[in-house]
């Protein structure tokens, strides 16, 4: 990973004038993201807030290397992914980014520990170091005694913690949280946000928390609003 000119390793994410345009079947264009510019410090937590259809998923997908942008520059952890092809983006996702999905999406037939290790099996395949890291993460997340439990044997909050552990397995520059509290009650949601903040800050890892719930934005360093594909200052 070579930092590109003008980008320091203290910047986890730099999006400059990013556009994403979809061409519909009738030939018309739909602008999902319009000249988005966003910068995240290496340990900064940002809440991305907006209504449904505002472009939050598109922005996060581009930052996470799941979607390619139509225009603009995207640098994550010093790696410019603006012109990456599909293979390069896959490798990028293995190494630089962590995801915590809205519906958690743990692999149902793997226990908690194995759900963390799947990241290593799909990517670097380091073996023993990955197993040690998984055990350490489970310990830090208070799940050491649940390592051998399947997701069906865990509570909602515990599953969320496993998902966070999975997102941190490859020591990413950036973790993307998609509606982490939408399936949880208020008290549990606050506990989870507290945990997310502590984990991100203790590791100095940047995070974007996608949410439409204004009640949890105070856990983040700042909020960025998006409406109709445009980021508001």
């Amino acid at each position: 990973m070579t930092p590109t000119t003008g980008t320091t390793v203290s910047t986890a994410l730099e999006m400059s004038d990013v556009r994403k345009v979809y061409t519909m079947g009738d030939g018309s264009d739909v602008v999902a993201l319009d000249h988005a510019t966003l910068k995240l410090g290496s340990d900064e937590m940002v809440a991305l807030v907006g209504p449904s259809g505002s472009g939050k998923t598109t922005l996060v997908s581009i930052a996470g290397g799941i979607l390619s942008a139509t225009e603009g520059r995207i640098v994550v952890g010093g790696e410019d992914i603006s012109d990456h092809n599909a293979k390069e983006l896959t490798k990028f996702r293995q190494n630089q980014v962590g995801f915590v999905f809205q519906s958690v999406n743990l692999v149902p037939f793997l226990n908690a520990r194995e759900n963390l290790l799947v990241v290593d099996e799909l990517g670097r395949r380091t073996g023993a170091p990955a197993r040690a890291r998984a055990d350490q993460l489970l310990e830090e997340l208070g799940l050491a005694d649940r390592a051998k439990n399947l997701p069906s044997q865990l509570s909602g909050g515990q599953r969320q913690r496993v998902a966070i552990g999975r997102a941190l397995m490859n020591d990413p520059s950036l973790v993307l949280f998609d509606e982490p509290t939408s399936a949880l009650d208020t008290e549990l949601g606050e506990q989870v946000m507290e945990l997310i903040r502590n984990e991100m800050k203790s590791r100095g890892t940047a995070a974007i928390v996608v949410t439409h719930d204004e009640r949890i934005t105070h856990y983040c360093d700042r909020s960025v609003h998006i409406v109709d594909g445009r980021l508001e200052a």
Partner: protein
Amino acid sequence: MKLALKELRRRPGRFATATVILTLIAVLLMFLGGLLDGLIASSTGAIRAQDVDAIVYSDTAQASFVRSRIDPELRAQVEAVDGVTEVGGIGNVQLGARVPGNGPRDLASVALFGYEIPPTGVPEAPAFGQAYADDTLKADGVEEGMVIELGPARTPIEVVGFVSDTNFNGQSGMWASPDTWRDVLSQNRPDAQLADGVFQALVVRGSGDLPDEIDAATGATESFTVDGAVNAIPGVEQQSATFNQIIGVTVAIALVVIGLFFALLTVERTSLYGVLKALGAKSSTIFAGLVAQAVVVTLIAALIAGTLVVVLDLLIPPGSIPLQITPSRIITSIVLLLAAAVIGCAFSLRRVLRIDPASAIGTTS
């Protein structure tokens, strides 16, 4: 792939239906193959057992013993061909046989051969009025030392021993001297009796391209290698072709079953695959996992089926149906099924390639 194999171990129930269906298909495949092998064996054993380099019929016979005649003059021409070292006459007659202890209408079907050069596994021709019997006749109650009566003339023939895999046209082979054969022929098929020295076919040992050289020298024969003669037996090729077509269709059905099952599984797991892709899984990794699952499921089904058909073969009374289960047939069936498994999975490849990792990220954002 580790992930896919873990799923197989942890959720075997998920694959139970496909395994059961594939087991049934595999049993059918192996059973059909065993029937084909058994039918072919029971039709061709007498020819396959010939330890010779050429089998010679008269040129208008179309490889049929009944239609073929080789007289001494024609035989002499064959013997004079360069490379020929030994020539023996052979002929057969197909009759019903009365076995002591069986009902009057409960006849055993036999093909009595008169031979000069012993086939593989058959001793030198016994004395007049005696014959070796194929061991498939044991299922009809024939025992060594027993005298059975052949044909409408009830010609007595003493069974002096048993041989294996010498049947012809679905009838149990019996092996006697040329004199015994002529005697049975004249008594039971007077219209087809042959003069001394006349045989229906010749078996020839020697070197070189004997079938072509013999036919070129005589101009009145049609000669084959042993393999060629086996394929030329009327009905054998057609039988093989028919069964092989049925087997081919069965393999195609297996391919479709596997393809559909894993296509459905892929649809069910679109969300999971999307997550895995978002985490950095390559499409090739996901597809390899699918193929691994298909191969393991198919292998398990094939091994269960192989065991079942072997047990079935042991349970079926000998002689009741022409079933012959061999290791090579089981292995061939397994290989065909595994190939079907891999190809069947290809139906899912496009779907796997098209799974969008972005689908893993929120539906409400």
